[in-house]
């Protein structure tokens, strides 16, 4: 089994998920509406009040976290519900399936996070990051980190009985390190602080991604096969 073969099946699995999503719009439509609804609740509750920028950073991450919690489990749960888990097991190695799903989830998260940030910029008047470059770096890196951790958890809960409720329960403790450094780096990006003060948080996010993806690749086989 050479690398090109693996790459080809990863791309085919990713392509399948993307085309399936484009055709059925199961996740994207519901998720975009979810974001709109959540944001409107925030707007109601903020109505006219000015909030500190650091609170904005927290709010942004709350919306991003819950959007991820409601959307990212689908990739594996759908395969399990439609009974296509076995089909994929017979088609490709666990690693290709994992990476294909990881890429799909990452794309979905990045799309979602960009949409959320766009809405925040449009509708919350004092939501103006002082350092747009750092801000987008944190949002995108954070998105990758969220999808890297939730992909394997989605695979785990897809095999359990209470899928929907279990997903946030299992994800939250594992996501907490990344949420904390994500929020702290976003705060720095919102305020006029030096880029370098976010360096520790960015490093933490980066190493988090590496650690979680490596562990997932090693462990996925045990989740994927009975």
């Amino acid at each position, binding site marked *: 089994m050479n690398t090109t073969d693996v790459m080809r099946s990863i791309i085919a699995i990713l392509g399948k998920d993307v*085309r399936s999503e484009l055709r059925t719009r199961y996740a994207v439509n519901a998720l975009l509406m979810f974001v709109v609804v959540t944001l409107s609740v925030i707007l109601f509750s903020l109505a006219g009040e000015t909030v500190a920028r650091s609170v904005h950073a927290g709010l942004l991450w709350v919306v991003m976290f819950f959007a991820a919690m409601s959307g990212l489990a689908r990739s594996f749960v759908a395969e399990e519900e*439609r009974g296509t888990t076995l089909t994929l097991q017979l088609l490709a190695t666990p690693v290709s399936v994992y990476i294909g799903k990881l890429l799909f989830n990452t794309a979905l998260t990045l799309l979602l996070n960009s949409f959320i940030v766009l809405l925040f910029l449009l509708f919350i008047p004092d939501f103006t990051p002082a350092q747009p470059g750092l801000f987008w770096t944190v949002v995108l890196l954070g998105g990758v980190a969220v999808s890297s951790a939730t992909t394997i958890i989605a695979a785990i809960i897809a095999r359990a009985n209470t899928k929907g409720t279990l997903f946030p329960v299992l994800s939250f403790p594992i996501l907490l390190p990344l949420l904390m450094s994500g929020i702290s780096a976003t705060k720095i990006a919102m305020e006029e602080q030096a880029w370098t003060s976010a360096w520790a948080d960015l490093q933490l996010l980066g190493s988090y991604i590496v650690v979680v993806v490596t562990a997932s690749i090693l462990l996925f086989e045990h989740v994927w096969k009975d």
Partner: protein
Amino acid sequence: MLTVKVASVAKHFNRRPVFADVSFEVRAGEVFGIVGRNGSGKSTLLKIIAGVLTPSRGSVAYELDGVAVPPELLFRSIGFVAPYLMLFDEFSAAENIRLFAGVRGIPCPDSAASALLERVGLPTDREDPVRAFSSGMKQRLKLAFAILHRPPVLLFDEPISNLDSDGVATVHAIIREQRERGCVIIATNDQSDIAQCDRVQAVSSGA
């Protein structure tokens, strides 16, 4: 030449044995039947042979010209048809075929896809998703899924369920052809399937 060695395989669920100590060997050119009553673990055994389920005890080994096939590459040597195997509902038959080929890394021009669809008796011009197919047509598409990559081992679990007489003839033709390329293991209780087999092994729970 290919050999499938099933050595004293046992499977437990929650410490309750599904079956215990099943051993047999299937050589190239053979059609091997697994029979047993409902709930005797035929499907479980077939999944173990396919490498998607880990046996509680014992082992399944594949040897290609005396060289063991590594378990992680097993999926390339196996074609699998079963009632509980599902296809990608939201795509058409041709798209499904191209998807299978794509994931397996097999080049699949339109002509090859059409040929395969014809081989299993499906119309080549239907664009609607598989969701709309009848169960017999879905069964035919599963056959295409199994033989697409010309695997040396075919694992059939009740291969003629939902099929008309024409479909049954197609299945049996595929089984006969497979003798040239490798072997077939069928889990079935159907007499016409059993008639295709060279040897038959019974499994029963607790045995």
